C-alpha cells in the first residue's frame, strides 16, 4: 500500500455543500475551474424542490375546442 492508509479507501465522501454568498464573495480571489460555480450558478436539491413545486402549478393554455 502506497500513500494512504487502507481505511481511507472505504470512507464515504461527505456531500458537497455550498454557500452561494461566500462563493460569490471569494470568487475573484480564489476562483478555480467552473465559471458557473464561481458565479454561484448552482442549484441545490432544496432550491430545485422549491422551483419544482412552483413550476408544476403553472398551467398551459388549454385547447379551446375541447
Amino acid at each position, binding site marked *: 500500500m502506497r500513500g494512504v492508509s487502507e481505511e481511507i479507501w472505504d470512507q464515504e465522501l461527505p456531500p458537497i455543500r455550498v454557500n452561494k454568498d461566500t462563493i460569490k464573495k471569494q470568487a475573484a480571489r480564489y476562483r478555480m475551474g*467552473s465559471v458557473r460555480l464561481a458565479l454561484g450558478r*448552482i442549484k*441545490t436539491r432544496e432550491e*430545485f424542490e422549491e*422551483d*419544482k413545486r412552483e413550476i408544476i402549478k403553472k398551467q398551459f393554455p388549454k385547447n379551446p375546442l375541447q
Partner: protein
Amino acid sequence: MADDEAFLRQESEISAMVTGLPDTLSARDLEVLRKTTECYGILKDLALYAEELNSESFLPPINEIRDAFDHLMRMYSVLFGLRDGDSEYIKENLDAVFRHVYRASFDYLDYIRIYQKDYMHRRLEGISQQTIVNLFPEYYREILPEIESCLEDIPLYKASKDIGKPDMETVERYHAKVLKMRDYCAQINKMAPALIEAESKLRGEAEQRERKESGIRRAETWKYLLFTIIGAIVGGIIGHLF
C-alpha cells in the same frame, strides 16, 4: 500527468491482476461495467443539456457522480494491489458505481423535465388560445398531450429511481422522451416570434373593436337622453297649453 510518459514507466510494479481486465473481472462484473458505461453516456448527454437549459449546475447528480468515481477507485485499488480485497468487494463496489450513475441520471431527468416545462410555459405566456389554434395547431394536437404525459411520469421516475433492481430500459425510454421534449422546445422557440406578432395584432384589433363599440354605446346613450329631454319639454308645453 498523462503527458509525462516517464511517470508511467516509473510505475511499472502493477498487480498481475490488471494485465487483462476481461480476465480479471467476472462476466457479471464486466456486464455491470458495460451497463454503467452505457448509462454514463446517457447521463453525460443529460448533464450537458441540463446546463444548456438553465445555465447553472445541478448539485445532486454531481454528488452522485463523485460517489460513483469513489467506488470505481475502490475497485481499482484492489485490482492494482493498492489494498486488500476479494471478488465480493469488487462486485459490491461495481454495483455501487452503477447505482450512483443510475441515480444521477434520474436526478437529471427530473430536473430537465421541470425546466423544460418552465421554458415552454415562459415562451407561451400571454399567448391566447385563439392565436395558438390559428398558427400552431400541432401544439394542441401533439405537444400539450406529450408534455402532460411527461409530467405525470415524474412520480413514476422517482419511484423507479428508488427501486432495488434498476434497469437500463427505463433510463433509455425516459432519455428518448427528454429528447422529444427538447425538439418540442425548439419548435415552440421557432414559433414564438410569429405567435407574439399575431397575438399583438389580435389584441390591437380587439381594442379597436372595443373602442368602436364603446363609441356606438356612448352615441346611443346621448340619443336616448336627448329624446327624453325633448319628450319632457314637449310634454311640458302640451300640458301647459291644455
